């Protein structure tokens, strides 16, 4: 089970093509990393399996390794780098959430538009982006969006992690749109009538009366989307973005690909994500319960 990934990172195979020896880790250089070929990019996909394995193998962490440096030492030594990678996961997820929430709110409102053309268009867009795998969207964005754009004669580079952010923002957008639409529809039409009778415009009713009422209702599902997207950011490693999982694989390779390092290294990644997402999940559940009893 563990072999493919191990073999995938033979000594010297770390971040390939840089001509360095195993210990020669490219520190966070998005532009340099984006040059890595797709054939090497796909390897960390196995990390998904390993994440699961790591959970099982965590107890082995402590005992393993008496020779060179103990797994614990390795993890501690690389922790700063790995945490920088995790910071990228967090940054990608936060930015994707921000962009996706803004776009999704607009899309959700467009789904409630009076004009049938806009309404159907928005509905179609939402359904498409909601019903395709996030990874497929990510691939599309990675390969369709150029590595730089020219704005008013200024060339703005788009590093891979920024492109990945757009890739994750799309499913966030579609899910937020659905949350917004559902929440607005759940407000009784009598609220609309009362507001209309007071001469509010449609836009005012939506922004001043309807959306503030459902903000609470939207919060738990919205946080849920966030937790999912935060965990999904590791998929960015598949398309070569330097984030925690990519770095974990590289660190492992740099340490000579010792099998006993799997569990500790990937276990560390697992722990980081768990410690980040679990509180969000608990808070979501708590808010849900609180709003239900109201």
């Amino acid at each position, binding site marked *: 089970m563990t072999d493919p990934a191990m073999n995938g990172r033979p000594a010297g195979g770390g971040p390939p093509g840089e001509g360095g020896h195993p210990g020669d880790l490219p520190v966070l250089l998005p532009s340099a990393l984006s040059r890595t070929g797709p054939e090497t990019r796909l390897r960390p996909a196995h990390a998904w399996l390993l994440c699961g394995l790591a959970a099982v193998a965590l107890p082995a962490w402590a005992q393993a390794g008496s020779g060179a440096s103990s797994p614990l030492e390795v993890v501690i030594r690389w922790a700063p780098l790995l945490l920088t990678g995790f910071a990228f996961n967090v940054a990608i997820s936060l930015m994707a959430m921000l962009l996706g929430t803004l776009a999704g709110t607009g899309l959700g409102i467009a789904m409630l538009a009076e004009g049938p053309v806009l309404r159907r268009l928005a509905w179609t867009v939402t359904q498409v982006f909601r019903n395709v795998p996030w990874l497929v969207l990510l691939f599309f964005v990675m390969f369709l969006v150029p590595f730089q754009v020219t704005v008013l004669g200024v060339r703005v580079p788009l590093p891979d992690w920024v492109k990945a952010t757009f890739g994750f923002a799309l499913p966030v957008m579609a899910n937020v749109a659905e949350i917004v639409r559902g929440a607005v529809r759940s407000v009784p039409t009598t609220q609309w009538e*009362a*507001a209309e009778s007071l*001469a509010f415009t449609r836009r005012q009713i939506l922004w*001043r*009366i309807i959306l503030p009422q459902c903000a609470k209702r939207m919060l738990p599902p919205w946080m849920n989307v966030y937790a999912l997207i935060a965990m999904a950011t590791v998929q960015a490693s598949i398309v070569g973005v330097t984030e925690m999982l990519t770095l974990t694989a590289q660190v492992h390779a740099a340490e000579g690909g010792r099998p006993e390092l799997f569990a500790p290294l990937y276990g560390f990644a697992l722990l980081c994500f768990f410690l980040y997402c679990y509180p969000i999940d608990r808070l979501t559940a708590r808010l849900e319960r609180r709003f239900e009893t109201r």
Partner: protein
Amino acid sequence: MAGIPPSTWTSDQPIVRVSDVHKSFGTFEVLKGISFDVRKGEVVCIIGPSGSGKSTLIRCINALVPVTSGTIRVAGIEVADPKLDKLALRRTVGMVFQQYNLFPHKTALANVMMAPLHVLGQNRAEVEVRARALLAKVRLAGKEDAYPGELSGGQQQRVAIARSLAMRPDVMLFDEVTAALDPETVKEVLVTIRELAEEGMTCLLVTHEMNFAREVADHVYFTDRGVIVEHGPPATLFSAAQDERTRRFLSQVL
């Protein structure tokens, strides 16, 4: 802007004129040619059995429901005109609903202040003074900071009346505003409406409160199945109804 009738309307004309209004939902004709006038300062009650189209009629007057044919004029505004400025109409006509429909995320005071602030763009300090005065007027001084969920039905309904009045409408529409209330709280709402009427507010009420209609209304219309069967001053209509349907209805509710 609110409350200033367009120049085509003068106060000696009826402030509300409904002429031959028909309304169908699909093939089902709910209103079958309704005509009546309301003069400024008048209190007009509409009574009739359930399903006779009373709510539909009153909702046509502030364009919540479009008419199928016929005309409605409110203070010079042609309601059935396709180019109708709905916002102008609704600044002139206030409406209170059976289910109060307060905005649950706002306090009583904020509910009253919202429309003058954001629809009329009036000065916040002035609006607040007026809103507090209106809440006091409906006997809710001290409840300014309460949320609708913390108020009784009768209190919520009085906030709803104050909210509507804050727009300084020329006409108030009431659609069975006491129908959802406990018998004890009905009275406090009716007292509020009666005071409004006494101050000269033009009121059009759909109501099941026959005693209220008898005491307060200037004119009562009895509707059944989309037509006005009979109308007249309450003294006449309640004690000497001509039509058999009116008499049967009154004998059931009185």
